[in-house]
């Protein structure tokens, strides 16, 4: 253990804790906001903080300058054999930034009016057109560069000998940097003088809530058990945070052993390997850094062990509050979580049999090499999802806190930040459960056709398209994919909450013990038979299965792209405000010859 690896571990812990706490707060906001969208009402989005325009400009410019520098400078260093790949990355990134900036500008000008002729020209096109145009340019540029690479390969010496390709790479990096800088400059020029209200799409509302909770009076019931009462929120919060430790947030990073001491040192940290091996393992002599806080070989077992202690917090809170409703809530929480833990553990067993490991990294790698867990174990996915929702005590399994029955359940007597801790713990658990679902069933950080050494679209043994990517690029893609998938998963889970009513306590127990448990056992049996059958099958069957797995990857890729396109076009759809009612007081006033005057000016 060197100092460098200690620092790396510390950074990883910090990332996890910050991610969980921030996501917990944001998902509280998301929960409310999404319900507002479903229910057609105004959600929490008004919290605002005023900062000076200079600071806003700095927020825009500093990251832009850093990104531009990171793009422009290293691209001039030569990396033989990678020119086309790097050029493609830089150009595609520039195109992405370009259309996105134009899109934002267009919608902004359409809403707030134009400042100059350029604004007007940009706003003459609908925001959606920029998106479609951007997509077209993306594809066009990729094809063009492929053709260029084919030409340079067919006529070796003509271009690369003169250093043309190296120049091209450098120029493309500078071009991308210029696009980033120009966008940031133009955006910061648009920042009005004086104080600027920042809403961050309403997410500041979560911050406002937290501040309110911290300053609220911390009431304790007279006869409550002082120690246990104070301990319970921490006990409830703790498992949610520490279970995340084994979840890999990205593929293993490989560092070059620059100082040849066979241990990670600060010098090595500056030298990320240029390429990774296709297998995902680091080459001999390289130093691996896992992107899980603790790369335990017991992986999933650790998750179950720690998640099981989550019961203690709820039970102690219910007992220590000296309130009958809280006690009922604590009892319900305990029995529910104990029951569903059984179904949860058994439902995942099928997947473990297929993968042959409980090591999280290994589970993700297996899904990358074959197919995502949801295709391999669809039944287990639904069983696991149900058990997981029950474990996190969310609708429709929120009996422990069913507000219309037992008021608030085990945290009924808590106020202030102690209540906030329960709340945060619950949502952190919720984010963690999404991350776990992603890791087990949605390929973790894996993206279809993105191998550790680059993009490779292949079915079975036939390669359709290949693009070598640097280790850094793939790692960034992976990390982005993991967090993106987790966020989408939380988003989907919120939908469950706003559409379902809650079970009755006995129905819940019946579901757990008489439906989920037998289904999980049958799933194990069927999986066992299939695994044995496939193990003994001929190589042709294996090849066929591999092709089938690649088809599922293609489906995921296609579905993912379509979903993103649909989401963006949906978001960019021009809003239509339709009036259902013919009458309203405003309409009445208008017909009577006047408009209701209000102080708000609304």
């Amino acid at each position, binding site marked *: 253990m060197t100092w460098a690896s200690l620092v790396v571990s510390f950074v990883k812990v910090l990332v996890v804790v910050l991610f969980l706490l921030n996501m917990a707060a944001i998902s509280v906001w998301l929960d409310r906001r999404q*319900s507002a969208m*479903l*229910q*057609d*009402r105004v959600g929490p989005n008004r919290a605002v903080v005023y900062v000076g325009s200079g600071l806003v400009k700095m927020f825009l410019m500093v990251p832009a300058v850093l990104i531009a520098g990171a793009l422009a400078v290293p691209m001039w260093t030569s990396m033989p054999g990678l020119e086309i790949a790097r050029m493609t990355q830089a150009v595609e990134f520039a195109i992405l930034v370009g259309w996105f900036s134009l899109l934002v500008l267009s919608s902004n000008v359409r809403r707030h009016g134009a400042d100059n002729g350029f604004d007007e020209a940009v706003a003459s096109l609908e925001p959606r057109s920029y998106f479609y145009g951007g997509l077209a340019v993306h594809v066009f540029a990729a094809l063009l560069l492929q053709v260029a690479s084919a030409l340079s390969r067919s006529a070796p010496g003509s271009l690369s000998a003169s250093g043309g390709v190296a120049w091209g790479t450098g120029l493309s990096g500078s071009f991308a940097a210029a696009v980033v800088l120009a966008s940031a400059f133009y955006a910061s020029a648009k920042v009005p003088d004086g104080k600027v209200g920042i809403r961050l799409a309403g997410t500041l509302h979560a911050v406002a809530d937290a501040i309110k909770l911290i300053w609220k009076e911390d009431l304790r019931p007279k006869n409550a058990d002082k120690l246990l009462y104070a301990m319970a929120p921490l006990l409830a919060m703790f498992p949610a945070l520490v279970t995340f430790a084994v979840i890999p947030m990205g593929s293993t990073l490989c560092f070059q052993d620059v100082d040849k001491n066979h241990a990670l040192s600060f010098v090595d940290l500056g030298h990320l390997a240029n390429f990774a091996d296709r297998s995902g393992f680091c080459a001999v002599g390289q130093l691996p850094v896992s992107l899980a806080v603790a790369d335990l070989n017991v992986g999933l077992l650790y998750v179950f062990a720690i998640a099981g202690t989550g019961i203690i917090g709820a039970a102690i809170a219910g007992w220590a509050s000296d309130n*009958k*409703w809280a006690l*009922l809530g604590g009892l319900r929480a305990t029995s529910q979580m104990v029951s569903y833990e059984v179904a949860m553990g058994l439902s995942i067993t099928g997947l473990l049999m297929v993968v042959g490991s409980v090591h999280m990294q290994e589970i993700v790698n297996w899904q990358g090499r074959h197919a995502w867990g949801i295709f391999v174990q669809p039944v287990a996915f639904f069983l696991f999802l149900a058990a997981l929702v029950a474990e996190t005590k969310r*609708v*429709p399994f*929120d*009996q422990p806190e*069913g*507000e*219309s*029955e*037992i*008021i608030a359940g085990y945290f009924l007597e808590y106020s202030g930040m102690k209540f906030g801790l329960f709340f945060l713990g619950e949502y952190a658990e919720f984010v963690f459960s999404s991350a776990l679902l992603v890791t087990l069933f949605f390929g973790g950080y894996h993206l279809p056709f993105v191998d550790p050494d680059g993009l490779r679209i292949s079915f079975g043994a036939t390669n359709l398209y290949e693009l070598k990517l640097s280790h850094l690029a793939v790692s960034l893609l992976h990390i982005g994919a993991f967090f993106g998938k987790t966020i989408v998963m939380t988003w989907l889970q919120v939908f469950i909450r*706003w*559409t*379902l*009513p*809650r*079970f*009755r*306590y*006995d*129905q819940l127990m019946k579901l757990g013990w008489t439906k989920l448990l037998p289904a999980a056992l049958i799933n194990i049996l069927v999986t066992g038979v299939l695994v044995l059958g496939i193990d003994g099958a001929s190589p042709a069957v294996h090849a066929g299965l591999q092709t089938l797995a690649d088809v599922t990857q293609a489906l995921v890729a296609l579905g993912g792209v379509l979903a993103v396109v649909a989401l963006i076009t949906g978001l960019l759809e021009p809003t239509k405000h339709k009036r*259902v*009612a*013919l*009458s*309203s*007081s405003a309409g*009445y006033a208008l017909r009577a010859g006047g408009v209701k005057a209000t102080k708000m000016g609304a």
Partner: protein
Amino acid sequence: MEPLDIELDDGELELPNEPMQVNMGPAHPAMHGTVRMVVDLSGETITKVDVQIGYLHRGFEKMCERGTWTQVFPYVDRLNYASPMLNNVGFSLAVEKMLGVSVPERCQHYRVVLGELARICDHMVCSGAMAMELGAFTPFLWFAKARELIWDVFEEETGARVTHSFGRVGGMAQEPTANFKSMVRAAVPAVLALIADGEKLLLANRIFLDRVENVGVMSKERAIALGWTGVVLRSTGVPYDVRKVHPYLTYDRYDFDVPVGTSGDNFDRFMCRQEEIRQSARIIEQALEQMADEGSVNIDDPRIVLPPKEDVYSTIEGTIQHFKIIMEGIKVPAGECYSYTEAGNGELGFYIVSDGSGTPYRIRIRPPCFATMQGVEEMIVGGMLPDVVPTFGSVNMIGGECDH
């Protein structure tokens, strides 16, 4: 160590236990702040329950005795605050029965339309709130949105969204507005569409059905014995609807059905309400069809109806007429009568006594909820604690009229 194999009776092994007694309400989310249940629990099963009403008692009947007959209208608004218009109409009819007058046909249709709109609101609020307390928040807010559409119409017609105080003895406070019909015709289909959306979320949902089916069952015989009326009675299979059995206003001229349930459980109550909303829409359509566009909504009797404002300021007769009605009240002949209508929750009866002065001598109301609440205890004993929520939700206890 010695094995512990002492022979023990089963009883000795068990810990001493006694039922847990909890207070549900009045400050409990499911109790709407207006009722308290002292519940004995064995585990989660309810062994005994004591339903205590009266938390919204405001001396309504006594208050009515201190003003004129017309001044009672704001009070009746606050009986069933989910459908004030039905109470308004009910009280107008009671006083008109004492006076022996009946309002013009246009007004009768107008009252029917407004009343049925209020009934739709009432049923929507009840069904939606019940679903919300089961955890399904979204349908409730969709129903609330539908209610807004109806309230828009009410606001346009009466100037108030909730407590309209719009009924008057011998007519209504105002004529229908010029675009009353078109407004209602636009609003009702939109409301029905929203209700259909909300129902889709609930009726295709196994969890919701499991929570309401065969829960809170009431037999036909017991329901009649307890004096139940309205939706709760019809859900047990008794087709008693005052609008059909003892038609008032112009209800005998409309073609509508009375939905009845079979088992009297929460599901039947929910479905009866949903179906009644559709029947109300049918009634509204026919009433709008039959309602004349011209003509007065008030009877032509200067002793009962206020004169137009221009007359008050320009003619001596008008001034005196106005003064007499405002200061002394409408002179209702001495006597007593019982008048009853179908309100949101069932038969809303007014038993009124007059001594011939302009002030009511006694007003006694027969709120549908009061009778219904007697049956709640037997519906929830033996069930589980979570069952209290849909059962209490589906009887639609309204504190304002129950604690009269």
